[in-house]
């Protein structure tokens, strides 16, 4: 049994167009010590998946309409708030995209980390603060003791994200969810954060769910990858398989449209491969494959929604791929 198992998860949101299915039968699992990359465009349900695991779907308008989420065998859906609060922070933790808005501006970095430690462990304030300083040192903040008394606005973007990470790993969670942890950061800082997350995983055996839209980040971070589109997982497998041999036309497009940095040929690079159009609004999804309108391989069968299937190690939800038309 995997450490975290999400099975056939359905999440609905009440909108003015009626109930809209944001997640439609998502199944994922993560083992201890591995990184699952979840990749897709904005609006495909990556963050909703993460928030469901943390029990943070705003309700209303959101509602978990079905499925199960099990952490270490314990069902999370329908758990009382009190138990969820115990689990959040100690067994599972999350790093958000924008460190400035997710830190409290009126408390120092050290106090905020100490607060998390005191909530979950039986330690006093001074001891918690000392541990916070150790953690800040661990995540690579220079002069950690002095920096612990700084307020978030006194820290740079990279340091704020390190504080978030220190807070998230303060109780050595089993599962760490990183929702686009480096989108707001510069590349040199992004590289440092990636290395830090990999170090933490090696030291504590943390399972990481890395949510991103960047295939480059996936290559560096993920052991396994799930590609999401319009609330469904459409392809899943080992990172190398997905990157070298993507089967779904959407996954192929996501990889082909990245401007290459490689040395390559001299002169102006050829135009990038494009995925035409945009993700359809969820309330307009019909019966068929949600990607069909943007897909170059569309044919009659696409009028019916494909299901994730085929090779169990590398399943894909695409008629054209299943019938070897690609």
């Amino acid at each position, binding site marked *: 049994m995997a450490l975290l198992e999400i099975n056939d998860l359905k999440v609905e949101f009440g909108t003015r167009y009626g109930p809209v299915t944001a997640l439609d039968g998502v199944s994922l699992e993560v083992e201890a010590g591995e990184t699952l990359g979840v990749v897709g465009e904005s609006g495909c349900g990556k963050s909703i998946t993460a928030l469901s695991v943390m029990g943070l779907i705003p309700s209303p308008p959101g509602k978990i309409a079905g499925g199960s989420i099990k952490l270490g065998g314990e069902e999370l859906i329908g758990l009382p708030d009190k138990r969820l609060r115990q689990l959040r922070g100690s067994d599972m933790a999350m790093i958000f995209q924008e460190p400035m808005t997710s830190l409290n501006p009126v408390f120092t970095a050290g106090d905020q980390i100490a607060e998390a430690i005191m909530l979950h462990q039986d330690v006093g304030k001074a001891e918690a603060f000392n541990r916070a300083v150790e953690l800040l040192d661990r995540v690579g903040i220079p002069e950690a003791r002095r920096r612990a008394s700084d307020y978030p606005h006194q820290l740079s*973007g990279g340091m704020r994200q390190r504080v978030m990470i220190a807070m998230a790993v303060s109780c050595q969670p089993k599962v760490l969810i990183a929702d686009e942890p480096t989108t707001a950061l510069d590349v040199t800082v992004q*590289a440092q954060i990636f290395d830090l997350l990999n170090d933490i995983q090696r030291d504590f055996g943390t399972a990481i769910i890395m949510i991103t839209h*960047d295939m480059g980040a996936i290559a560096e971070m993920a052991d396994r990858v799930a590609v999401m589109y319009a609330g469904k997982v459409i392809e899943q497998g*080992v990172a190398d398989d997905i990157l070298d041999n993507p089967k779904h036309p959407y996954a192929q497009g996501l990889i082909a449209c990245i401007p290459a940095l490689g040395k390559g040929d001299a002169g102006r690079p050829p135009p990038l491969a494009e*995925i035409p159009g945009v993700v359809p609004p969820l309330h307009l999804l019909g019966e068929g494959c949600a990607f069909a309108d943007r897909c170059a391989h569309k044919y009659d069968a696409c009028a019916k929604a494909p299901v994730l299937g085929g090779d169990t190690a590398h399943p894909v939800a695409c008629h054209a791929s299943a019938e070897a038309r690609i």
Partner: protein
Amino acid sequence: MSVILEAKDLTVRFPMPRKSLFAERQHLEAVRSISFQLEKGRTLGIVGESGSGKTTAAMASIRLTGPATGAVEFEGEDLFTLDDEAMRKRRADIQLIFQDPYSSLNPRDRVSHIVQEPLDLLEIGDEASRKARVEELFKLVGLRPDQLNLFPHQFSGGQRQRISIARALATNPKLIVCDEPVSALDVAIQAQILNLLAKLQEELGLSYLFISHDLGVIRQVCDDIAVMYLGRIVEQASRDELFTNPRHPYTQALLAAAPSLARRKSSGAKRPQQLKGDPPSPINPPPGCAFAERCPLAEAVCKQMPPPLENGVACHVANR
């Protein structure tokens, strides 16, 4: 080839608030005596991290930001000496595309009017010809005529960026300054916009001053590249040269830090070179090379003397 935009010794200093009534006023030099040339029909990329002064440099070079010194020549005419009315007229030739397609379009205005507004302000053509121009622009950037009367919130991020591009093209400019035009977009949409910009450049003979922090994007669109660090240009080269033979240690580090599909976790690949820490503060910058603190090659001389930009690179070690 003729030069369309040339900056000479461009410096931008922002006054800081006084610490006390009698304290000396401190200044923040966001851009420190940089020079560059943009040739007609080509794209000059300015790349750097946040706070490196790339946006300030671009805005100063089209006279959109405060107290700049030095000189900027647009088609041989010094922009800093023009009077306000002449500069306003000149703006027809210079347009902008901003980073955030959500905040750069007026949410209460219909998109047809947003695109038409530059024509109204500069009094180009009559009402009917302006309307026709807007429709033509919509087609050019890949939007449908039936979308003309919608509001910005009814469009996706990529479509909004197309509207920004249409607005920038309205006056038939010669130069477009693109300030991180794709960094707020998803990768799939980013490719669409980059291809559109390349197509427009070819069809209309535009010149771009292109600001980005993403080296992949820079390589895709730019012919010439200037790398900025803490207000200075540290390396300046053509695309092929910069990407095959980066000389400044900062450029090398930037290239090494960029995520790459080839660097796999499964194969245990490690980044060849890692930068520690953050750039120093632009208030009271270090006396020597600004990068010396983080530089793997730094020597004693680097901390004392700022390196001059010679042979396209500002580095004591690389220029030896």
